[in-house]
């Protein structure tokens, strides 16, 4: 006889999530995960100036805002056929990478750690789950680093602000490039801040994850899910077509090149409907339908070849062939694998930022003068700490006619599809062994690993 278990809210994520599970004989046999709050303002872009999208869509996420600014700009630049200057490309890469590291630190220290170490009476961190194995010495060190992570995240935003105006919600990313040219003093300032960030990532963050890995090795076997991964490609290099992280998909760990037109949306489990336009096209407009039969989430489900795919650091590291993640083999698709991928990506990115800062040439024009055409359709893609971001825009008479944003939630929290498939997070929870009664910490760890 299956037992029903509802966890609502699953907090500490960017959006609160409702988990509905069925357990039998100490294992999760079915799982549903949906967000219970509507956050979709693309329809308010209708009739607006195309350039406004770059600012407004950043408000999709207070954590992954840079990716939205960049994706919106890229969609417009595709329409106008603008080729970015070197400064613009490098500056955007730096912002995107910093935002990813910021997201990874937030994820590990704010979302993940409280499931492994108790927070004794300090501030809002109350309570603590069961199954605590980390030694008191290591725990103290991790607590110290948790506080330190606030400072590092602050420094990351500061570094973004030096070249980007302010953070959260960055201002220098605009259609045609960036607004601020690189100056020597900015580069020096950023390099200096980066040193501190690098040290923290390579030492503290790395050690803390090792502590978790050593104490909870079985979590390399928990929370696997299907081995489907997707990345839209990020960090354009010198040549226009080259990406540091390639645009690829993998089904059961077999990677292929991504074909963008195979991305579609599936609102079977979403509280959304298509008022007009072809059903399933990500470029179609959508309207909210609260209480829609069969719906259980405010996430707009996204699929590739009608299959759900996991996005995020793990997907990117698998698809770009990161040596550490590759060595893990199929174990990479696991709770610890996801933590590890975020760390490996952070380590890789701090190195690349150093390189990009060196390549920045003071005095080069930061933005190209160009006009957005009056009519057209385009899509802009970007990667964020949580996963891929896609913006679909269509213009009519110089104004936005339709706008649609798919972010990491659309992929990782894709609600059940037409074909009866589960989303990656749901898939990962199924099969998880649940130890005791009450809120099972194992499930929380799996759910928060995305």
């Amino acid at each position: 006889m299956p037992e029903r278990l509802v966890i609502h809210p699953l907090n500490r994520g960017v959006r609160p999530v409702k988990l509905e599970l069925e357990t039998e004989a100490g294992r999760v046999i079915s799982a549903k995960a949906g967000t219970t709050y509507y956050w979709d303002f693309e329809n308010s872009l209708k009739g607006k100036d195309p350039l406004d999208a770059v600012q407004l869509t950043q408000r999709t996420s207070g954590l992954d805002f840079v990716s939205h600014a960049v994706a919106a700009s890229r969609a417009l630049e595709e329409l106008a056929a603008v080729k970015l200057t070197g400064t613009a490309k490098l500056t955007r890469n730096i912002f995107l990478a910093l935002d990813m590291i910021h997201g990874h630190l937030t994820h590990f220290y704010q979302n993940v750690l409280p499931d492994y170490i108790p927070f004794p009476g300090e501030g809002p961190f109350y309570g603590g789950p069961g199954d605590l194995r980390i030694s008191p010495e290591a725990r103290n060190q991790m607590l110290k680093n948790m506080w330190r992570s606030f400072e590092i995240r602050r420094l990351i935003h500061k570094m973004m602000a030096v070249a980007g105006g302010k953070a959260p919600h960055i201002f220098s990313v605009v259609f045609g490039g960036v607004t601020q040219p690189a100056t020597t003093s900015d580069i020096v300032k950023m390099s200096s801040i980066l040193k501190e960030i690098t040290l923290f990532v390579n030492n503290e963050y790395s050690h803390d994850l090792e502590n978790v890995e050593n104490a909870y090795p079985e979590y390399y076997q928990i929370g696997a899910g299907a081995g489907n991964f997707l990345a839209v490609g990020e960090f354009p290099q010198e040549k226009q077509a080259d990406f540091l992280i390639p645009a690829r998909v993998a089904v059961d760990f077999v990677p292929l090149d991504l074909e963008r037109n195979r991305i579609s949306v599936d609102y079977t489990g979403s509280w959304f409907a298509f008022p007009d336009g072809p059903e399933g096209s990500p470029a179609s407009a959508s309207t909210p339908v609260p209480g829609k039969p069969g719906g259980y989430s405010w996430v707009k489900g996204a699929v590739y070849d009608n299959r759900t795919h996991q996005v995020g650091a793990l997907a990117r590291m698998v698809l770009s062939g990161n040596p550490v993640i590759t060595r893990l083999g199929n174990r990479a698709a696991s709770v610890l694998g996801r933590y590890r991928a975020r760390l490996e990506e952070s380590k890789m990115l701090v190195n690349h930022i150093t390189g990009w800062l060196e390549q920045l040439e003071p005095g080069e024009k930061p933005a190209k003068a160009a006009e957005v055409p009056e009519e057209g359709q385009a899509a802009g893609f970007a990667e964020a700490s949580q996963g891929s971001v896609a913006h679909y825009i269509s213009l009519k008479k110089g104004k936005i006619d339709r706008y649609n944003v798919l972010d990491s939630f659309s992929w990782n929290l894709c609600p059940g599809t037409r074909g009866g498939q589960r989303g990656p997070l749901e898939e990962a929870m199924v099969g998880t062994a649940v130890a005791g009664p009450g809120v099972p910490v194992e499930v929380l760890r799996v759910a928060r690993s995305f």
Partner: protein
Amino acid sequence: MKAISRRQFLKLCTASAAAVGLSQSWIPAVAEAFKKAAAGDPPVLWIQGSACNGCSGSLMNTVHPGMRELLTEIINLSHHPGFSSEAGNLFTERLTKTAGENRGNFILVVEGAIPQANDGAFNLIGQDSAGNPITLVRLLKDLGEKAQTVIAVGSCASFGGVAAANPNPADCVGLEKIIGVSKVLNVSGCPPHPDWIVGTLAHILLFGKPELDDFGRPKLFYRGLIHDNCPRRQYFDNSIFARRFGENGCLLELGCKGPLTSGDCPTRLWNEASSWCVSANAPCIGCTDPSFPDLTMPFFKRMPEIKGPGITSTADAVGIGLGVATAVGLAAHLAGNYLTGRIGRKKQGEEGDI
């Protein structure tokens, strides 16, 4: 006894802005005063509504006090969805329990707008022990009544902001539409500066409610216009305007909303006084304004376009078009005057008579 007077505190909050922001002048006296004020320990309950959570993200950029000092020594943050170890029923039950125990004594901080449509179905923040969903709007009505003070952090919580942008299918509103206006302090911005959040909290803890402007925002931080204190004011006065992204100069022609927006960004600066929007050659988008974003769009144009039946045009085009049409019309009329002999010809006729 307070270790610091209100006057001193206000001076620190505003005058210091010219130097490096509240953050840097967070002198030990203030910290001391805080500890004394916090002895009464009014718990702070932070609720996230329909928001992108950028406001919490901005709060974390606070320096002097840093997050650790703020959370462990200054404010008694009893509830925050981003930090709590608990999930599910435990999480919501704890929240209602804390609110019940501290009735009339806690500070409620809300980030994000409140959707009212379909009885609040657009935002369910969790469920109670019986498994019934709790809507955000119901929760806030309840908590708002019990709270001593309510702070709306960010433009969404204050005025609806991005969440309430047209067409607003979820019928999102700001907090003052849910809870009485008199109880709510608005700390608008998208997101607000950490100093604005911390400074407002500080003022409440130390001296009670700060003086508010027409829109319920602490005058301490929202008194001046961005444009009046802009470091690029000289460019404006000398008519040096940036026409393209990436150019230096006054950003008015690129849509800067500084002349219409209140806030101390130009003097306080953002992210540890590193920079701010205009310093990065990016126009102000008016994010602290109650009319953000609907009425401050287009962000990158100085004036909205004129929409008529079947036509959209810029005000400049209409104006210049009118001017040209008039010139053509008058020239045609002048020609008519000649042709009908109203002017010019008459004199010839008179000469002919002689």
